[in-house]
């Protein structure tokens, strides 16, 4: 039966050395009937980092989490979590992970405290240790006042916090968070972000899924964009932004004469005669900015306003997922992209 020994539980922040992979997959596949949900997923997530799997509804994010957390089995491919193969050593994986799902995995019929003690019992903590850990986590997640109430009476944010608190009872080294902030109000969302950042500073590896670009940008070291069961792109937020064109410098004028002479001085520009603004393609680097400013100086023109626009993840997302969407999935819900 499962030994609770875990190969990757070497001190997490040993600094400097290349971290071992907390999660790695090769060609992970899953289909339901003739619908392919995951179509060959390759991932490598270093220990101690935050990884975000970003994608619209139905992209396969939850399926990926379910497979990696041993809830369901993959149809093909391989995956290792915390050094254990998910197919041959699921109990090794289970001993190392914690999962907080999209739909709260709390027992609604019993109180928050009873939920925590249930987890403590299942992790075979002594009665005293269990009580201590439960009280500590309830306190940390601001649930002490509600501890004696049935979990079904909790608000969405409280349920999510209880869910995460229950996950932490086993002191997991890898935590899967499936859409941790979906359905939460902005305040609870920021609260949850705070909690996730704190987990990371404790050296935990976080695998989160989200449909919010802002969330991935805020939290993740690396982001993979999942679309239609495939990884459309992977990298840091910065790297992803560099993948697509769209960066530019924008100059706004109030004097039409200055506007016209600037347009001719700069050459390759996009003109907007109505608002008297010019867009110059640029990566926003110091050198390109200087070139633009030098040209304006030479022509003795002064712009009223200069802004540098770098592509945000929304642009990346649209660029990466937009093309493949139209032909295959006309019913792709539009509101999933914020």
């Amino acid at each position: 039966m499962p030994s609770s020994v875990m190969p990757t539980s070497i001190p997490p922040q040993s600094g400097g050395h290349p971290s071992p992979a907390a999660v790695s997959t090769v060609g992970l596949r899953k289909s339901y009937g003739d619908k392919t949900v995951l179509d060959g997923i390759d991932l490598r997530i270093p220990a101690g980092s935050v990884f975000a799997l970003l994608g619209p509804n139905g992209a396969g994010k939850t399926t990926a989490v379910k497979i990696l957390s041993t809830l369901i089995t993959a149809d093909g491919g391989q995956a290792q979590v915390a050094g254990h193969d998910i197919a041959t050593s699921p109990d090794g994986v289970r001993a190392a992970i914690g999962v907080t799902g999209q739909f709260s995995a709390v027992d609604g019929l019993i109180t928050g405290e009873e939920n925590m003690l249930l987890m403590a019992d299942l992790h075979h903590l002594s009665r005293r240790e269990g009580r201590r850990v439960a009280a500590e986590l309830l306190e940390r997640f601001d649930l002490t006042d509600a501890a004696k109430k049935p979990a079904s009476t909790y608000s969405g944010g409280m349920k999510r916090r209880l869910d995460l608190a229950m996950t932490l009872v086993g002191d997991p080294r890898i935590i899967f968070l499936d859409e941790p902030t979906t359905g939460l109000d902005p305040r609870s969302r920021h609260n949850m972000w705070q909690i996730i950042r704190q987990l990371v500073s404790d050296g935990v590896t976080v695998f989160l899924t989200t449909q919010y670009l802002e969330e991935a940008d805020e939290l993740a070291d690396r982001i993979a964009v999942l679309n239609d069961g495939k990884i459309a792109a992977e990298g840091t937020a910065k790297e992803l932004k560099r993948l697509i064109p769209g960066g530019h410098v924008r100059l706004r004028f109030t004097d039409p004469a200055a506007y016209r002479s600037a347009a001719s001085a700069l050459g390759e520009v996009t003109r907007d005669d109505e608002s008297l603004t010019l867009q110059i393609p640029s990566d926003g680097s110091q050198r390109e900015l200087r070139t633009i400013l030098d040209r304006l100086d030479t022509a003795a023109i002064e712009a009223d306003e200069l802004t540098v626009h770098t592509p945000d993840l929304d642009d990346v997302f649209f660029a990466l997922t937009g093309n493949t969407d139209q032909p295959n999935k006309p019913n792709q819900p539009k509101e999933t992209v914020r």
Partner: protein
Amino acid sequence: MSTLSLAVRDSSTMLRRNLLHARRYPSLTLNLLLTPVMLLLLFVYIFGDVMSAGMGGGGADRSAYIAYLVPGILLMTIGGTTVGTAVSVSMDMSEGVIARFRTMPIHRPSVLIGHVVGSVLQCVMSVILVGAVGVAIGFRSTDATALEWLAAFALLVVFAMALTWIAVGMGLISPNAEAASNNALPLVFLPLISSTFVPVDAMPGWFQPIAEYQPFTPAIETLRGLLLGTEIGHNGWLAVAWCLGLAVLGYFWSKSVFDRDPN
């Protein structure tokens, strides 16, 4: 931790969880108790004269029919309680916390064992309550020795365990509570076509083999024999065989359904 001690520890944790549920929400259990009590009162006080007139060559009186009826009603109580088990298992499986259990390094079948042990305890409680009603309206064991009482109790527990494992399987394959209570219908229907209310030899000839060899009748006849001193004959072995067979079948069926990928 060895497999066995892990199993025992996790199962008792799950049992505590189920008992907590049952204590907080006792309404389901109480509803299921109503049916056997109503049937007991109905057959004794409303149909009682007709039923006893038809028994034992017409000479039996009402108290003899009470004696005849109660053992069957007790086993019927177990059948009804296990319908509640099927419903609560199917409801439980739709809870997110079950998905959490599946991703934890615990002894997996303990989730089911917790339900079974909890349900058997509920059956025992129900049988005691319904039995008390039986005693209140005049049921008396005529010549049971301490050993026979013990055997009767053991029979009830083993029978409850066997039906519960089947009920757990029924709950697992049911997508919701309604489906579960439909799927578990045989557990309340079988006692109606057993020797609970009338002796098998009073039934039509073609039907007698069905009534005689289905799981309830041998258990009822064995219980009657233990409490009232009637002839048990081959029913004792039949009852034990049914209980073991159903328990083993229910266990492996439930386990294989639970080990499948959830939706």
